[in-house]
């Protein structure tokens, strides 16, 4: 007790009350209120984050043309409207084409790079990482418009290729970092053992490395798929009437009028995402998914 308050290594001391003091009651009271305030705040943020999903789902079952919340009557007419619409069906097809293409491209590029980067020294590794991640930081508008004019030179604007390329700009860095994280948990001795027993590097990868980073590869592919499905800004620039994806069509519909079919589309999109996240968590574990991305 006579030693005084504990001091930190850099000499800054802190006055700490030890034991109950006359002000302890109010201090603890304040802390308790603080805790509840904190919890309420976090709860609000959580509600805030999930609100779009809820809203969109609810409005999609409304009956009238006016988007209101809560809807007056419950009806599935907008779902029927969606299924009948050729515009939306085309958009769905385009989205799927783009998503599959992106998944393949991003997973391959991301995995090979993650494998290759392991052997590089510090500085080279940093450079590759930087280059891989850089597209994520450039505003989507800039990426979109640069791709638009560049591919336009070759007559490739508004093609599926353009859309896949744009989506992969985003998906590849994510796939790369997920596979990298998965690889870091992989015991390099296993690969050495395979080589030692006569496997060539390719066979070692196929027989020993890939099966053990399966969950990472799966997560990477999943993320690439979902990223592609919901990418909007770049796609707005590079896609055309024939190749536009669901988010772009939704946007256009929204700009013009509050078309309730948009709610339907959004709900379905959200369902796909929820499904993907659930599947992903089951395979990899939600915490790891969150930590890797």
């Amino acid at each position, binding site marked *: 007790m006579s030693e005084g308050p504990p001091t930190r290594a850099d000499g800054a001391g802190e006055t700490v009350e030890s034991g109950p003091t006359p002000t302890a009651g109010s201090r603890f009271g304040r802390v308790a209120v603080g805790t509840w305030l904190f919890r309420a705040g976090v709860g609000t943020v959580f509600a805030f984050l999930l609100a779009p999903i809820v809203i969109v789902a609810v409005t999609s079952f409304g009956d009238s043309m006016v988007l209101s919340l809560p809807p007056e009557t419950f009806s599935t007419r907008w779902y029927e409207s969606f299924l009948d619409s050729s515009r939306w069906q085309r958009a769905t097809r385009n989205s799927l084409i783009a998503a599959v293409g992106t998944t393949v491209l991003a997973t391959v590029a991301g995995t090979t790079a993650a494998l290759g980067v392991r052997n590089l020294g510090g500085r080279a590794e940093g450079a590759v990482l930087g280059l891989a991640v850089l597209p994520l930081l450039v505003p989507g508008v800039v990426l979109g418009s640069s791709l638009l004019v560049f591919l336009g030179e070759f007559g490739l604007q508004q093609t599926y290729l353009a859309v896949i390329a744009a989506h992969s700009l985003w998906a590849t860095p994510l796939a790369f970092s997920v596979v990298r994280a998965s690889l870091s948990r992989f015991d390099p001795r296993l690969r050495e053992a395979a080589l*030692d027993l*006569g496997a060539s590097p390719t066979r070692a990868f196929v027989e020993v490395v890939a099966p053990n980073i399966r969950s990472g590869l799966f997560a990477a592919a999943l993320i690439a798929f979902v990223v592609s499905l919901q990418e909007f800004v770049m796609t707005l620039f590079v896609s055309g009437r024939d190749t536009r994806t669901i988010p772009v069509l939704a946007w256009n519909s929204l700009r013009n009028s509050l078309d309730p079919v948009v709610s339907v589309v959004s709900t379905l999109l959200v369902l796909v995402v929820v499904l993907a996240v659930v599947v992903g968590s089951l395979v990899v574990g939600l915490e790891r998914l969150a930590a890797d991305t």
Partner: protein
Amino acid sequence: MRTVVELDGVRVEYGELVAVRDLSLSVRDGELFCLLGPSGCGKTTTLRTIAGFESPDTGQVVLDGRTVTSLAPYARDCATVFQDWALFPNKTVIENVAFGQKMAGVGKAKRRDQARDHLKTVEMGDYEDTRPAELSGGQKQRIALARALAVDPDVLLLDEPLSNLDKRLRETMQLEIKDIQERLNTPMVYVTHDQEEAFTLADRIGVMNNGRLMQVGDPETVYDDPVDEFVESFLGNSNFLSGRVVGSGADRRDTARRAVTVEFPGVGAQIQIATESGLTPGDDLTASVRPEIVELSPSPGETPTSPDGGTQEGTAERRADVEPDTTNRMALTGAVSDVVYRGSSIRYQVDIDTGEGAELSVERSVTRAPDLSTGDRVQLSWDTAAVYYFGPDGARVRA
């Protein structure tokens, strides 16, 4: 005798750090060769260089007559048993063992049959379809061994495979490995930091320190005739006394021979050592007094202790200093500072009266141990000719 592995002037560097320097050794057919040394001495790097996971900056690696220095691991005819076994978790036991043959293109039925044979050799025949995760440490170790043997390697490389096991299991496995090695006559290079293990297993030992191979020989030779202070200190517990050469000249007993006078301030003694080694006054000299050559007895003196039990070896009173030219025995007195009971043996720490009061330790098996307790006065003596001396650079000085 055919040489299976030959390393010639191998040097391995990691940037600034030199892991292995100028190392040359050869392993003969059918022998179990142990690379022994403390952590960081380069023994694992040496093993990995033989296997092909490290590339030497200079030097050659020759396996069974073929120079393999630039070849990848999968092109070399050796197999490794890793310290943590590295069994493929996504394959069953039999798939693990058959892996090497699969890579060689052997058909499925045939390689599974061969794998079964190898599993039988290591007595794991019932575990074919188990996954590695379900096995215990000792079992995994056996599978790793079987997997390596299954590729019929020219030489088997083992990187401290037993260090993750508890003591009793380790000792059992040592004997099993030795047995397998003798039966199959497969040459093995075995890396360990455990001197007892090396002595149990090895036909020959190579002691390494700081990237260098200090000494190579069969266990008895290396133990009886260490060439370096490091080897001596690593191979057993000894009492090291530092000394300084204070004079040199002709041996008083035989003037045709040269001798040096050495002072050991730690025990306050000065002796003469006949040696042709060319030491000059001012040189450092270290003496290694092995506990087994030290005679220990309670000394009848100022504070009598209970005389019951214990054997009395030599009761003649001797002075602390030895006449340089008379006897060949060093005799010292001191007091017991600590008695450590170690199960089947007892270790006595004795503070020497004279000089700077160095502390010497003597170990006796329980049946031969004198009945001493802390504070008792004792006498220590030993034959100076049985002491190992090492010069300023650590090299052995023969007396």
